[in-house]
């Protein structure tokens, strides 16, 4: 070492220590008796309510099934950190790796080599590129049709509960124009309106981007531009609270029905003050629970399409390469305090 032990004897001693301990470590790592299934689950990031809720569900299932679960993810939603962790788990010899990818494409090669070196790879919350990643299944929380239809149904209920007729103008506030989730939901919303509530008139939807301020401004403009407006959907977790705020600021609580897709934590104040009566989202606890159950089930054999019971979740639909979590969860003033994500 430069600052003292120039003789090198300490360096030799140090190296010997290193080699000794490494050898010791190898011995510790030797064959282990326990054959418990080892599952690693990686969210997009840790430390936010949504992915804490999914962890809660996953741990519940892990306890029931008596499997070893590691639930860990990056502190920022970044692909390179996810890749680092997945490579680490592979060296540790995990049997199953369940990933919620931050980037469906950039993670695919890592998932593929994980699969090739013997692990079972599945995705949840967001799918990876199925061909490139060769993941076994995607646990899909958002049956798009159910979400689109439920959004329209709770809007209709809400307007009728105010004693008003359904006929009038309705507006959807989305996020970016290319967001595929949102565009799919809107297709199903239009379908539901056509089939069940033809008297609802849909205005051209707004795409202010994932920007709270813009959402609020454009909603406020729409509120003054369309006097016959009956209801507004905010269908991203950004646009929904912004829409609610715009309606509240315009003193239109009770006259304009507001609903959408959002997180209970962010929407609580608007449910409490009556701006929002009901809204929906899938149950993230169930999503984590189902993902772990599916991982465990897949280790026992293939999962042909059909309906299955996964623990407390009954009759879950399995399609080709996809497992669907049931219908979305509906939040109102009665149950919103039970959720903390």
């Amino acid at each position, binding site marked *: *070492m*430069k*600052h*003292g*032990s*120039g*003789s*090198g*004897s*300490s*360096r*030799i*001693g*140090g*190296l010997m*220590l*290193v080699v*000794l*301990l*490494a050898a*010791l*470590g*190898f011995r*510790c*790592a030797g064959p282990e008796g326990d054959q418990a299934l080892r599952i*690693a689950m990686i969210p997009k990031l*840790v*430390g936010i309510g949504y992915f804490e809720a999914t962890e809660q569900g996953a741990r519940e299932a892990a306890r029931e099934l008596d499997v*070893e679960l*590691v639930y*860990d*993810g*990056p*502190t920022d939603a*970044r*692909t*390179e950190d996810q*890749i*680092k*962790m997945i*490579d*680490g*788990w*592979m*060296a*540790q*010899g*995990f049997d199953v790796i369940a990933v919620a990818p931050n*980037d469906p*494409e*950039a993670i*695919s*090669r*890592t998932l593929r*080599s994980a699969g090739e*070196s013997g692990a079972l790879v599945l995705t949840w919350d967001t799918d990876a590129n199925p061909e*490139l990643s060769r993941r076994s299944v995607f646990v899909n929380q958002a049956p798009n049709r159910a979400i689109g239809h439920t959004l329209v149904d709770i809007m209709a209920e809400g307007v009728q509960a105010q004693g008003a007729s359904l006929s009038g103008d309705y507006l959807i506030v989305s996020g970016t124009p290319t967001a595929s989730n949102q565009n799919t939901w809107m297709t199903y919303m239009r379908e539901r309106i056509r089939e069940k509530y033809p008297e609802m008139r849909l205005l051209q939807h707004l795409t202010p981007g994932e920007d709270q301020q813009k959402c609020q401004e454009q909603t406020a403009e729409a509120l003054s531009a369309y006097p016959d407006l009956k209801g507004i959907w905010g269908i991203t977790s950004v646009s929904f609270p912004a829409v609610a705020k715009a309606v509240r600021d315009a003193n239109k609580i009770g006259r304009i029905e507001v609903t959408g897709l959002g997180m209970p934590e962010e929407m609580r104040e608007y449910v409490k003050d009556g701006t929002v009566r009901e809204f929906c989202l899938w149950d993230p606890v169930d999503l984590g629970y189902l993902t772990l159950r599916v991982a465990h089930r897949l280790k026992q054999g293939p999962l042909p399409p059909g309906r299955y019971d996964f623990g407390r979740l009954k009759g879950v639909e399995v399609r080709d390469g996809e497992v669907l979590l049931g219908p979305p969860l509906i939040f109102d003033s009665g149950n919103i305090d039970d959720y903390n994500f």
Partner: protein
Amino acid sequence: MSWIERMSAGVDSAPPGGRSYRRVFGLLPWVLLALALLLVFSQVRRPALLVEVWVPWIEVGTLAFVMTAIILTGGIDLSVGSMVALTGMVQAVLWQDWGWSIEAAAAGALLAGALAGGLNGLLVVAGLSPLVATLATMALYRGLAITVAGGDRVTGFPPSFLDMGRLLGIPSQFWLAGLVFLGMVLLVHHSRFGRWCFAMGDNRQAARFAAVPVNKVEGVLYTINGLVAASVAVLGAMRHDASIPDAHIGTELQVIACVVVGGTLITGGRGSVLRSLLGLAVISHLDVGLQFLSSRLVWLTAESRLIAIGILLILVAVWNQRSQRES
């Protein structure tokens, strides 16, 4: 053993007195490394796959070998992470939007790296403090990286390009790291250029008076850094089939940490490339070891691992301070 002796000979100087005390201090990084190795190897079931785990750290190491030389001159380059991201995006855009062949695009990325590094060198030579200059270019290059492809990451590179991600069965990053390591050892410890570096870090004014071509040394070093950053970017694209504009955020800190934990003086004048290899070994083993351990210990989350690494850095910094006061 003897090759280590030989390589660090001439850098190491043994001041007289207090040998046994300092010998204990000198052991600290080795003890840490041993503990970290124990951590890693007690958790590994498939050691062959460790190679993959180490790729991100080998990238950090590659950059740290060059950074060592820069820090030896009393400089620093905070823009390395941004340069990796920028050159990766330059390659992607040249290939995807400009229709260049992937090889030409890779050459373009290297050129962009040399230019970016050259600009750093130019600013430093012009008299800006390296800290300020590269802090500015860190933001500039990151901004450019995000702008060139509209913030999108680029994927879908040709298979022939992706196949070069491995050479003789191991990730190409290892070959690059070996090459850069040897190159920097020769440059820093076995050439006149290297002696200039030490002289500049020791006393810049005196070095100028002693006719050391200070500007030339700085220009060359910062440009090399850009080139190496670009090489890391090209190999990264091969491995992941993706160029990501917000990749390598914070990499510069890991790089500098390797250099400093190794024992190179952050103010320059003392240290060696070999020491940075030691620093890399300590930090990477601890990081990977703690990550492995976290599968056993639930409380060892990503956040608490950060805390552990932070405490380690403080420990080593204190150790460095003390041993410097000693000598």
